[in-house]
């Protein structure tokens, strides 16, 4: 007796629901089993990350260690939730695991209700009655068997014990790797400090750039635009610097070198001479002495006044004025040839009483003075920018190195060391060497020799034995005062005059300065020298090893 269609449909629907419920349970169990089996992969990856963080500086190592867990969780969840599990597969797994003798899978495979899921389902109308009857008996038998299945009891949740044990061991190793102090942390802290210093330097350079851009000076537009572009480019590079000290120093030094090349050696002397000349001209023209900024404008006006007063002078007065102007021209010849030529022409016109020529010469002189003023303004701007770059370079060089000592000594020696560096530059350039940077980058006072024990030439002495280092004091007019050294042009090299703005280390307080105070400065100087000069690789290593042994 075959069942009614509706009764059969009801049984099929019930079977489907039971299968779906079993499928959910299987999915949960599989997911848990997969998770427990594969957890050690994620822990192993985290351990490898921690290990890698000990071999190479790795920022946010903990975050990277957590990344494998995130990936693992996504994969496990994806596998558990998204893996296709059609009813036939559920039925076959139930058959296999519960020893149902293929009852479920046969029902799913042969019942037409599951036909969309199983291609081979048989259309009942073409089956003989006996077969249909057996099919229904089979369905009924399957349903009664499936009803008795309790998913929780039939498919208890399981975990892979060995894999979990392995994961636990790896987890302990990972935690140990994370907890034990990592030598790379110091490197990372240094990188952060360098990055912050670079950012700070970039900010200051931006401020300087804005100041230069907003100043209403006599700067040449093209030169100002080029300078602003270079500063902006440097600021961008510093902002993008990930914490690489060498790169930041190289960027700073490159622009510093460019600006230094643009800096005229006799700018300060020229300005002083021109100001002196302006004062003399003002005195000649009978004008009141004004401030230095206005002195050149006043000198131009004085030249015009002198040319205008010439018609009222007698021959003797003109001769005296001409002689004075000629002397001024001689004085200005070294610093400003154009102005000297104009003064000389004015003197000649005065001597001859040629008012037209005198007016023309006075006009030329005023133009030369304006040009000189523009040049000097540019030089001042360059010097200011250079100063800012040097400060930035020192900030970056000291960032993250010996932070405790650095903080203690910053107030004492920061400015002094800067002056010391510049003093060295001047010293080296006075020697007339082909490269001005060589003298600048050499450590002062042959300090490298002092760090070794004479009895053991190749063995650096214990730095603890040398708390202070002797730093020879440069001979000069006075500590901290500006010193102008006129350059001399020669065929062998370029002569420059450098400004000494600060005292040498120990000049203000004592001749002996703490060893740790000068160490990093010497290290930086040596590093810069190695960057810019051709030095064989073996010698570079030698220098690095030398400084690493001396590191306080």
């Amino acid at each position, binding site marked *: 007796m075959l069942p009614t269609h509706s009764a059969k449909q009801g049984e099929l629907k019930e079977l489907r629901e039971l299968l779906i419920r079993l499928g959910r349970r299987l999915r949960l169990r599989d997911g848990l089993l997969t998770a427990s089996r594969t957890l050690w992969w994620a822990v192993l990856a985290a351990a490898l990350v921690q290990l890698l963080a000990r071999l190479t500086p790795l920022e946010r190592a903990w975050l990277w260690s957590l990344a494998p867990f995130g990936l693992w969780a996504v994969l496990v969840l994806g596998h558990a939730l998204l893996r296709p599990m059609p009813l036939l597969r559920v039925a076959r797994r139930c058959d296999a695991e519960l020893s149902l003798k*293929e009852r479920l899978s046969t*029902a799913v*495979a042969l019942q037409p209700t599951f036909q969309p899921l199983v291609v081979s389902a048989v259309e009942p109308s073409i089956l003989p*009655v*006996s*077969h249909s009857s057996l099919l229904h008996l089979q369905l009924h038998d399957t349903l009664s068997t499936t009803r008795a299945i309790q998913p929780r009891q039939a498919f208890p949740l399981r975990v892979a014990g060995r894999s979990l044990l392995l994961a636990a061991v790896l987890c302990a190793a990972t935690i140990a790797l994370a907890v034990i102090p990592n030598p790379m942390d110091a490197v990372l802290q240094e990188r952060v400090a360098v990055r912050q210093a670079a950012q700070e330097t970039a900010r200051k350079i931006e401020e300087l750039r804005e100041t230069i851009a907003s100043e209403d000076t006599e700067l040449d537009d093209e030169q100002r635009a080029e300078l602003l572009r270079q500063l902006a480019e440097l600021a961008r590079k510093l902002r993008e610097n990930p914490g690489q000290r060498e790169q930041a120093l190289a960027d700073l030094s490159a622009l510093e070198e460019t600006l230094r090349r643009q800096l005229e050696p006799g700018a300060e002397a020229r300005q002083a001479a021109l100001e002196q000349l302006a004062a003399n001209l003002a005195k000649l023209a009978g004008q009141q002495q004004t401030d230095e900024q206005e002195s050149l404008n006043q000198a131009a006006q004085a030249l015009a006044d002198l040319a205008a007063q010439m018609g009222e002078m007698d021959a003797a007065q003109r001769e005296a004025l001409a002689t004075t102007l000629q002397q001024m021209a001689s004085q200005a010849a070294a610093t400003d040839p154009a102005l000297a030529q104009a003064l000389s022409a004015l003197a000649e016109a005065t001597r001859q009483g040629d008012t037209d020529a005198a007016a023309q010469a006075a006009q030329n002189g005023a133009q030369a003075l304006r040009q000189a003023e523009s040049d000097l303004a540019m030089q001042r701007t360059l010097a200011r920018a250079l100063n800012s770059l040097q400060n930035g370079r020192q900030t970056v060089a000291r960032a993250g190195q010996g932070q405790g000592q650095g903080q203690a000594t910053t107030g004492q020696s920061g400015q002094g060391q800067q002056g010391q560096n510049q003093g060295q530059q001047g010293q080296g350039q006075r020697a007339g060497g082909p490269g001005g940077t060589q003298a600048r980058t050499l450590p002062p006072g042959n300090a490298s020799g002092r760090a070794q024990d004479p009895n053991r030439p190749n063995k650096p002495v214990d730095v603890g034995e040398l708390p202070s280092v002797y730093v020879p004091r440069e001979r000069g007019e006075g500590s901290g005062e500006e010193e102008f050294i006129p350059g001399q042009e020669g065929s062998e090299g370029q002569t420059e005059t450098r400004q000494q703005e600060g005292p040498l280390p120990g000049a203000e307080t004592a001749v002996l300065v703490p060893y740790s105070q000068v160490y990093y400065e010497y290290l930086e100087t040596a590093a810069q020298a190695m960057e810019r000069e051709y030095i064989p690789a073996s010698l570079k290593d030698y220098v690095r090893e030398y400084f690493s042994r001396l590191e306080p």
Partner: protein
Amino acid sequence: MSELPITADQFRETALAIEREVGKIIVGQRELVRHTLLTLLAGGNALLEGVPGLGKTMLIRTLAQVIDCTFSRIQFTPDLMPADIVGTNIIVEDESGRRAFRFEAGPIFANLVLADEINRATPKTQSALLEAMQEHSVTVAKTTRPLAEPFFVLATQNPLEMEGTYPLPEAQLDRFLLKLDVPFPSEDELVEIADRTTGVEIPQPQVVADGPTIVAMQELARAVPIAPHVTAYAARLLKATHPNDGHAPSIVRRYVRYGASPRGMQAMILAGKIIALLDGRYNVAFDDLRAAALPALRHRLILNFEAQAEGITTDEVIREILREVVAGETVGQKK
């Protein structure tokens, strides 16, 4: 097709009753009885191999008695002729004196036929029996005569005394649905045999079925559903018996010369369906196929000389196949 006059429950009850009644006479040998019954209900024929005196004749005689069918026994000898099996036309004289040919049916015209020591007859005689087994009919003097249903041949072979025998060729062995090994009884079974056969009271089996019931059971057995993936498993098992198959286990590649024919798969499935019904199920399981694999395949595998030299039997090969070919896929291939 009309609904069958027997239900699955009746099938099971009847089959178990037959087993029970046969078991009254045949001591032990449960597997032999079960497989013999499987062959009968599947509509096939069985080949028994065992030494004399193990109750082969008694088994089929009892079976015929239980299902109320005719039984005949043919002792195969070298001088046995086909006509001795299928029958012949003889001249008879009626009451009026007229002479005419009359067909005298041979012993094949019975429901259950015991072909004892079939390998002692000549191939010509063997083929006469095998044709009857396959076609369920015999042709004598251009006249085809159908055999009575159910028709079941139980042929026996004696593994000893092979001299002067005519071993069945592979093509003819393939006609047997199952090949059954008759094991020697255990000590307890021997005691039981002695008690039953030497005492005063001889147990008598009861009739529990008849020919039409057996035919109906045969039809019902064929209607048992089998899922496609279960059929596919049977096909994989069969393919695994072929040494050239990619999934064949190493033992097959090493020792098997020829694998089983598709009749082997048919035999496994048919036997599996009956096993399922006897187990109270309405579908074939993988285990049913595995249970039928040995008797269904053992006479269809042809081993090579190396296997014969090393004493490898087809049963060992089939067991290895069953181990390696799992329900889902081939687990591993040893190279």
